[in-house]
């Protein structure tokens, strides 16, 4: 482990030590630090120096994870995450996550739906000017059972439905978009151990791009949090 930058650092967790990615490049074969005897993935030979993605610590229970997450948060890391098989209650606070703005955008989408539905119905059933919508179209106000052409009460059900439809589509699309999904490839998927993140294990991953990340220091730090294993994940 020939990491010049760690030698330079003497304090335990310096406020900010910026590393360029070139320096991280020199971190080859970091995978030797894995402790668990059952894992064999770290023994595969690295043909050439690869870039370190981050360090992954594994925990057995949500309680252990939560305690560890609070410490990682307090240590001032920014590019880090917890990976859990289910949403752990209170972990957002333990990680210091800010509330998502998603609901506000959904509100906007819903309002758009209401407006679109109103205009659609008003145009097609109440107004009579030509408009280009793929082809030239006309509104068609016609009299039926004495109802006025602009019958707002009769338009309400469709306005309601499109409000819901637009909101729901926006909710799901924006949620996945903000989460950066779909993303079928991710460095973490290289780890066999990480497969249990969707089953019964809890992980903390600190990424190498974090300004405070120092391979050795960070590994030592993660070990103090009581994980069952710490593994280096390559990009």
């Amino acid at each position, binding site marked *: 482990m020939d990491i010049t930058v760690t030698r330079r650092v003497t304090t335990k967790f310096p406020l900010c030590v910026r590393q360029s990615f070139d320096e991280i490049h020199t971190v080859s074969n970091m995978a030797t630090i894995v402790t668990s005897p059952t894992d064999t993935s770290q023994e595969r030979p690295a043909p050439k120096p690869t870039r370190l993605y981050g360090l992954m610590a594994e925990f057995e229970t*949500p309680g*252990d994870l939560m305690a560890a*997450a609070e410490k990682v948060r307090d240590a001032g890391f920014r590019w880090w995450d*917890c990976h859990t098989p289910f*949403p*752990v209650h209170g972990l957002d606070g*333990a990680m210091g996550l800010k*509330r998502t703005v998603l609901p506000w955008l959904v509100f906007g989408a819903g309002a758009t739906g209401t407006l679109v539905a109103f205009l659609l119905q008003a145009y*097609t059933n109440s107004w009579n000017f030509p408009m280009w919508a793929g082809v030239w179209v006309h509104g068609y106000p016609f009299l039926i059972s004495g109802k006025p052409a602009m019958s707002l009460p009769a338009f309400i059900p469709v306005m309601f439905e499109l409000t819901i439809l637009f909101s729901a589509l926006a909710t799901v699309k924006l949620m996945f978009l903000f989460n950066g999904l779909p993303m079928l490839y991710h460095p973490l998927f290289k780890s066999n151990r990480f497969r249990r993140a969707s089953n019964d294990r809890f992980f903390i991953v600190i990424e190498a791009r974090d300004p405070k990340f120092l391979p050795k220091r960070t590994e030592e730090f993660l070990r103090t949090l009581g994980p069952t294993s710490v593994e280096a994940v390559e990009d």
Partner: protein
Amino acid sequence: MTTLSHDSQLGQMSDNTVDRPGERAPLVLNMNTFGQVTATVCRVNEAEKAPTAWYIAFAGALGLLSVLGACIGYLIVTGVGVWGLNNPVMWAYDITNFVFWVGIGHAGTLISAILFLFRQKWRTGINRFAEAMTIFAVICAGTFPGIHVGRVWFAYWLFPIPNQMEMWPQFRSPLLWDVFAVSTYFTVSLLFWYTGMVPDLATLRDRAKGKLQQVGYGIFALGWRGSNRHWHRYERAYLILAALSTPLVLSVHSVVSFDFATSQLPGWHTTIFPPYFVAGAIFSGFAMVVTLAVPARELFGLKDLITLRHLDNMNKVILVTGCMVGYAYSMEFFIAWYSGAMYEKFAFINRAFGQYWWAYWIMVSCNVITPQLFWFKKIRTSIPIMFVLSLFVNVGMWFERFVIIVTSLANDFLPTSWDMFTPTWVDIGTMVGAFGLFFTLFLLFCRYLPMIAMAEVKTVMPQADPHGAGAGKHGHHGHEKGHH
């Protein structure tokens, strides 16, 4: 996991229908680890072969599906005259089936959305396949208006698509509201179902042995990796979807009831219809969930996740909504008399004692009398009895729609325009065939998709609480520190 002794005892308890003050009844039995939940649910999808009963059921479902296909094909090439419709009874089995299937769907949304908002934790065991049931039921429902329009190749006229004919749908008609309500309902239910399933698809992807499963589940899992930053937005989104689906589900059957209530026909033109239809929909939907859950939990070994308590709770919902439906039946009669409207009074007396009296009394005995048996806990917790009763409710609710639709149309204001409706073999074949479509989809779902929301079930286990029993030696201490 040595600190779990208390919860372990709870977990081993075989009868979780007993309420003990100050204790939460366990919703997952005989399991103490998250891994056990994963293994139990995934076993269904990962098994080399499905249980023999699955193959038999699937063959039967495919048989019925082909009946549906044949009947629809015959209808399209010949015309709607192959049904027993006549003038005045222009709606009969087609719309009965439509309303029946839309109604079935409502329980899925009630479980997934309304019970979620009410923090009813027991929903986690049953929500996934109840939502699946919703989607498949809405597919069945959508088939019927699609084929009853006569010239099915013009079915796209239902939607406001810009066209060179300068022709638009009539937005002042409840039938068009229905198009929007049902298609929105289908889309939102599908989104809700799929969003809920993504973490579980990731589980199947991570456990996959073969390349095909890994890629297949992998694509639909969208690269989900359980990141808590993702979970944070995911939970918000899920809550929003629940909040959107709740008024939506109430609106859908209300709009379906507007198809009738906004008309002038005696027996249809009543203000009680929207709430009465919604209660009936939830009633029939829960009966269908019980009908499906009872064999599914036996067949796929899910008794520890869909426990007797879940079934007991569902039977209580059936009892409550059954009472509402019974109340609506009697209130309809009362209002018919109280209104003093001659035709209204006749319509209801004719329903009970006219030529369709047998349909009316099947409806009353199945929907009003049957659920009353669920007052008894012995019956609520008896698997064979609840299964039979749920079938009765399904039958009764089909007849409810038949009675409403056909009796009002057959005998309206003018005796000279009265006529009887008799179904043809195509009517019956289409009705039975729709069950084939439903069960084909449902059986495929059971085999290839996670039938129980694993990620959600894990959250209701005591071990999932980072402050509770599940917290290891570091957990509690660490958290305390974090707050000081």
